[in-house]
């Protein structure tokens, strides 16, 4: 549906986007994920028409988008700051886009009423944005974006201004809404949990490049590059050289078990990544595993995070265990994992 083809954009010396190509399908919930300054917002602004790429093509259902001015694109953008018009009431804000289409007054009124109902703000139609809470403002912005029934809805960090509780509610709300209205959603976010819980597919951005495009589960379990492995979710990373089919050879620890994602030339630089929940804590007399001592235990309710200081490894190894942890700080332990639970990837210079 939306095709982004070889788009590049530089600001002076900074390369915001470097030959980015993506294809987003009809009705998909797609996330652009990356640290701040990685170019994801620039891409969003190019699609919305507030930025022009130096090179590349953007088409929507085969139609060229770049030649159209922003107000002639069938795309809605929900701004990070919401950009609600402070001098208009909630109802006026929502009606603004419909009034621009010169629809009959009766139809505008009806559609505004419906969409306010959907986001649960019917009682607040007469208020000004300044009289609303952050979560309510966010829902007004959402209502204003979807009331035009755009073919594509872009969301720029939609939940970043909300506190944690409201955010979880709004995530569910967004999902429900997307199912209901069937619009293609593209959401920009730096929060990988948000991206994973919302999106059907995620594109991970770094320094203006797309590093990986995949479904959340594949992205989490089979990161294809060190950046993705480190950025998406918590991970324990070990460096070494490729050591065949069952792991890497580490200078400090010898052979570490893992499964290569692709064919690796033996002896090449490689990285092994293992998720905290895949690591097992064993007592210090276990035959296998890296010896270390427990630094800290944090209890999160359903899970506990245990950080283990392993001599020779720069960062503490993070282990997630179900429920309350049986160990205390200072305890001597060994950490170990199965080869199938760790991934090995090539490190490209």
């Amino acid at each position, binding site marked *: 549906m939306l095709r982004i083809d070889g788009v590049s954009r530089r600001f002076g010396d900074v390369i915001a986007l470097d030959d980015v190509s993506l294809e987003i399908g009809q009705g998909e919930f797609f996330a652009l994920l990356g640290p701040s300054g990685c170019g994801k917002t620039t891409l969003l602004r190019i699609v919305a028409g507030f930025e022009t790429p130096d090179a590349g093509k953007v088409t929507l259902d085969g139609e060229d988008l770049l030649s159209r001015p922003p107000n002639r694109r069938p795309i809605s953008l929900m701004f990070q*700051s919401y950009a609600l018009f402070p001098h208009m009431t909630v109802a006026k804000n929502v009606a603004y886009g419909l009034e621009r289409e010169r629809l009959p007054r009766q139809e505008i009124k009806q559609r505004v009423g419906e969409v306010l109902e959907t986001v649960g703000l019917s009682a607040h139609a007469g208020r000004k944005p300044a009289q609303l809470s952050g979560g309510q403002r966010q829902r007004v912005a959402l209502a204003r974006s979807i009331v035009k029934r755009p073919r594509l809805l872009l969301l720029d960090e939609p939940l970043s201004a909300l506190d944690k509780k409201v955010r979880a509610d709004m995530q569910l709300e967004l999902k429900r809404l997307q199912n209901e209205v069937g619009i293609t959603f593209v959401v920009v976010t730096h929060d990988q949990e948000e991206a994973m819980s919302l999106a059907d597919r995620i594109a991970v951005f770094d320094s203006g490049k797309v590093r990986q495009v995949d479904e959340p589960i594949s992205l989490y379990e089979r990161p294809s590059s060190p950046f993705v492995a480190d950025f998406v979710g918590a991970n324990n990373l070990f460096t070494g050289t490729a050591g065949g089919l069952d792991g890497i050879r580490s200078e400090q620890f010898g052979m570490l078990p893992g499964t290569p994602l692709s064919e690796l030339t033996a002896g090449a630089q490689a990285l092994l990544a293992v998720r905290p929940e895949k690591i097992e804590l064993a007592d210090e007399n276990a035959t296998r595993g890296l010896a270390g001592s427990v630094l800290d235990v944090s209890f999160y309710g359903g899970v506990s995070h245990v950080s283990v200081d392993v001599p020779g490894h720069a960062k503490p190894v993070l282990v997630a265990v179900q429920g309350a942890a049986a160990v205390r700080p200072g305890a001597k332990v060994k950490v170990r994992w199965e080869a199938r639970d760790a991934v090995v990837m090539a490190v490209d210079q």
Partner: protein
Amino acid sequence: MKSEVKARSVARSRGRRLGAFVFLSPGLAYLVVFMLVPLALLLSTTVFRRGRFGGVVYEFTTENFERLLDPLYLGVVVDSLKIATLTTLIALLIGYPTAYVIARLPRKWKTVALVAIVLPFWTNFLIRAYAWIMLLSGPGLVNSALKVFGLGPIEVLYTQGAIVTGLLYSYLPLMVLPLYAAIDRLDPQLTEASANLGASGFTTFRKVTLPLTMPGVLTGSLFVFVPSFGNFVIPEMLGGSKSIMVGNLIRDQFLKARDWPFGSTLALALIVVLVVLLVAQSWVARRA
């Protein structure tokens, strides 16, 4: 316990009020001595008769107010209103785009542009008015320039047009600065949101930019209108003897005709017009 807390907070708020009074007293004293007292004196003379050789005869009369309604004087007030309104409108038409462009400049150039706007204030007001005489006079720069294109000469000096030109030149910065402040505060994302929702550039201006910068428009208009309306230097120098504004009339009543009571009445009329405008401005600004 509770009453103690309450007593303390009352004492504190009383102390705060006292502190505020101490800090405000120099300004208040200045206002009372140099504004309220003279104003009261001025207003009191409006109901008295003029003396035969100047001065005031303390004898109640309403003749000053009756004279005010004389078409001769009323015409001057109306003319002044027209000139001040025209000046304000042109200043708004020139000032808004100027302020808009400055507000959207990169930060470094903003400062340069703002300094350039304020720069004329560093030269004496009278000297700048004289400069306009040079420019607009018969063989002046404007006519010589027109001659190059085979046009003119036109008679500008000593017309109402010259007065408007002079006032506009003098007070345009007072329009640009508040407008700049209002436009600079405007979130550029609001105009983007408007475009995203399908509005053309003109619609965005009409529906979003202008309403949100209305306080700046009102303040700037007031800043230009008030000194233009009561001005007497510019009309004196550029308007010649043909056109006279209410400011000149007031000055002439005090200094030439020696009719203080009528001069005071005219001054009162001027103040009333301006106060009405101020109140209207703050009412509109509060609603925006």
